[in-house]
């Protein structure tokens, strides 16, 4: 019972019927269960949006913070207690729009966290504005002439930043999503999983059918360690490849580089600075 991730009580879920978020929630719970992760050691962080409500719907710890700011607390939590499994989970707008700077610098920092992005190519919670990943030409209440920008390509950017784990899945394939989430959580270092997620209310273009039609699974023999090949995959446009697109195992990991875990791996909350040592430091500044 302890690792069910289910609540004892009935939890009201604020998503629309048919929303792709349900699948992601299910896949995540399954992945964590199959990895036998103790929920008591799992922390989810999120921003604000429909996707960002996910942590509220599974029984684990969470830090549901500000729009666009899921990544910085996630990295700090990991740095403060590396024994925790930390997952930052938010929407495309949250992660790539408002939170874009943390996305790129979070990749560089490479804390051992998993970053799940519900990519519905729209701002769901605020009722259908374009997100960075919205298809060119989509009309919205604000983009009355349609968007004109090339959609943000998180996979290509992550590869360009030499991220340590870059994957994409389609929630239309729940099992694959679950498998890749498992790999991402197991991966040591920052792991991006961009999940294609239909928003059945506000995105009439990128539907379940559309995602199915516009994706394919990378072949078994695809080598995710080849950065150049990964870049080629990341800029394919007709159909988006699914799977682990790029991977590097050898990058320094944020929390390991802080120095505080060189001598022991106890979380910071268990430690106290030595009083005498502080007095000693003060004494260094004495005149005598």
């Amino acid at each position, binding site marked *: 019972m302890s690792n069910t991730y289910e609540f004892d009580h009935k939890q009201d879920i604020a998503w629309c019927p048919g929303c792709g978020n349900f699948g992601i929630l299910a896949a995540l719970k399954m992945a964590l269960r199959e990895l036998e992760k103790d929920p008591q050691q799992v922390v989810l962080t999120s921003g604000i949006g429909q996707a960002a409500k996910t942590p509220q719907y599974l029984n684990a710890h969470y830090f549901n913070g*500000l729009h666009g700011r899921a990544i910085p607390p996630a990295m700090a939590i990991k740095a403060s207690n590396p024994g925790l499994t930390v997952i930052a989970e938010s929407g495309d707008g949250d992660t790539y729009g408002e939170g874009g700077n943390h996305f790129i610098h979070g990749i560089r920092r490479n804390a051992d966290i998993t970053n799940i992005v519900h990519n519905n190519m729209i701002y769901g919670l605020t009722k259908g504005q374009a997100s960075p990943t919205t298809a060119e030409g989509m009309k919205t209440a604000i983009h009355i002439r349609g968007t004109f920008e090339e959609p943000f390509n998180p996979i290509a950017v992550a590869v360009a930043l030499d991220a340590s784990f870059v994957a994409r899945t389609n929630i239309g394939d729940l099992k694959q999503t679950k498998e890749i989430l498992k790999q991402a959580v197991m991966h040591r270092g920052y792991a991006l999983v961009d999940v294609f997620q239909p928003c059945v209310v506000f995105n009439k273009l990128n539907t379940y059918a559309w995602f199915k039609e516009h994706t394919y699974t990378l072949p078994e023999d695809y080598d995710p360690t080849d950065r150049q090949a990964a870049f080629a995959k990341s800029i394919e446009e007709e159909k988006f490849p699914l799977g682990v697109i790029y991977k590097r195992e050898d990058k320094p990991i944020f929390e390991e580089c802080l120095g505080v875990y060189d001598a022991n791996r106890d979380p*910071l909350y268990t430690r106290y600075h030595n009083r005498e040592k*502080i007095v000693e430091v003060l004494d260094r500044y004495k005149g005598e």
Partner: protein
Amino acid sequence: MVKNKTFAEDVSIVFGGEAGQGIATIEQMCATILHKEGFHTFSVSEYMSRVRGGSNSTEIRVSNGKKNAFVERIDILFPLDCAVSGHLAGRISSDTLIIADETQSGKCAEAREVVRVPFLETAEASGGKIYLNVVMAGFVLALFEVSDSAADDFLKNKFGRKGEEVVKQNMEAVRKGWALGEKMRKEQGLQIVLERRDQEKSTVLLNGEMAISIGAVAGGCDFIASYPMSPSTGVFNGIAELSRDFDIAVEQAEDEIAAINMGLGAWYAGARAIISTSGGGFALMAEAVSLAGMIESPMVLHIAQRPGPATGLPTQTEQGDLNFVLHAGHGEFPRVILAPGTIEDGVVLTQRAFDLADKFQVPVFVLTDQFYMDMHLGAQSDMMPIEKYQKYFVETDEQYLRYKYTSDGLSPRGIPGFGKGFVCVDSDEHEENGHITESHETRVQMVDKRMARLEMIREEAILAELVGPQDFSTLIVGWGSTYGVMREAFEAVEKPGTAFLHIKQVYPLGADVLEYVGRASRVVVVENNITGQFADLLTKETGRKVDDRIVQYDGTPFSVEKLTEEFENLG
């Protein structure tokens, strides 16, 4: 020619020069060594926002009477480049003794007689122009009748990393400068005869930066994420430096937003985090301050003020961000603002900030400014006890509710992974269990719960410091970094029936402050901004109108002269 000039009470020695000429080293060296020798030493520097060129200066003030403030007056000026800027030039009086290099010329020389000393030649002889600063420092030390080897330890410490040769050359340069000073002292009778006291040696010579840094560590700080910004970077540096000796995670964030959101993550996971920034950087943190308010997270923020708005005067001083710090963040929630005046305050209040933040689960601000950051001053160890700190988080049980309604109004703070409960924090309005809600009843209960802590904090308010008679009729009130200068001017003026009140906990104000201002027949507030922000706050908090406001907003700290005059004029 000097001819028998003696300083027996108080001397203000100023070095002026370009960025990159090593004025900071002179200050550090003179202050450290004079302090070691038992002189009461205060120093502060002012500098421009550039890395080379421009005109910077440092004032080293040595006194018998514990003068801990900036004076306009310059007793002895050492211009390193003689391109003394308008500002410094304005401080030169007919009493100022100017001691400059022989080969230099420039404005400072035009207007006034200048005593010439072959500093540059001596520096060149010691290995080059870069030794100019230590040559001059050696010169000054001689005037205090300090031995020519007094600087040796300092130099070993300072330059040891660069190799023995460098240390040796510096020692030589100091000795040569010392010899020049000794010559002037003996031959021209330039004497500085100030008291040396053992109890001065027993004080701890710190600048504001290190006071805050050490206070943070004493408060249990084990996490800092910040983004560099003058004049707050010194605390970031200071804590990074201390991380050699203590377990502290130090991270330079990509921006201020990341910094504070990391800080909140760290507190959530049980660490004790601080953020150091200045007004402009803090402006980017307002949303996360509001988040701290909502999720009832502890947070400690050090804000070193500089003159705004916007980029303003990046390396100068002002107390212009109080209103902003007081109200930053949308919505309503309690916070605490502490503002150190002395070095002891810096250590004590920062330590306390962690305790208050943790205990009451609120953001606590330590509000300083460039002047405070850069002043060096001796502090008494017994006035800043390092206490074992308490961590207030609890081990959770299965029924744990992060926002539980309790009889004492505080919901015990759990952290993930410690205990059997789940710790759920939410930036939306939430139920006791941390889950999102849109219930109006819960809303009211949660607002009330959050706000109630303000009065609890007020009850434990850090006392203000009253200087002067208890039965005052006029009360001169100041806060933060103006302590030293206000005290000196106040004591200089000796107005009967007048007292000086230094506020250390700026918000919420304690009952003592209410009581003090309540019985004053005249309240005067002194602050380093244009609108009188604290004066307004005092009125709001106590209902008492402020009768006079003494303000300054030119980017410089108050001088003893200016405040003395203002106090005289109060009539």
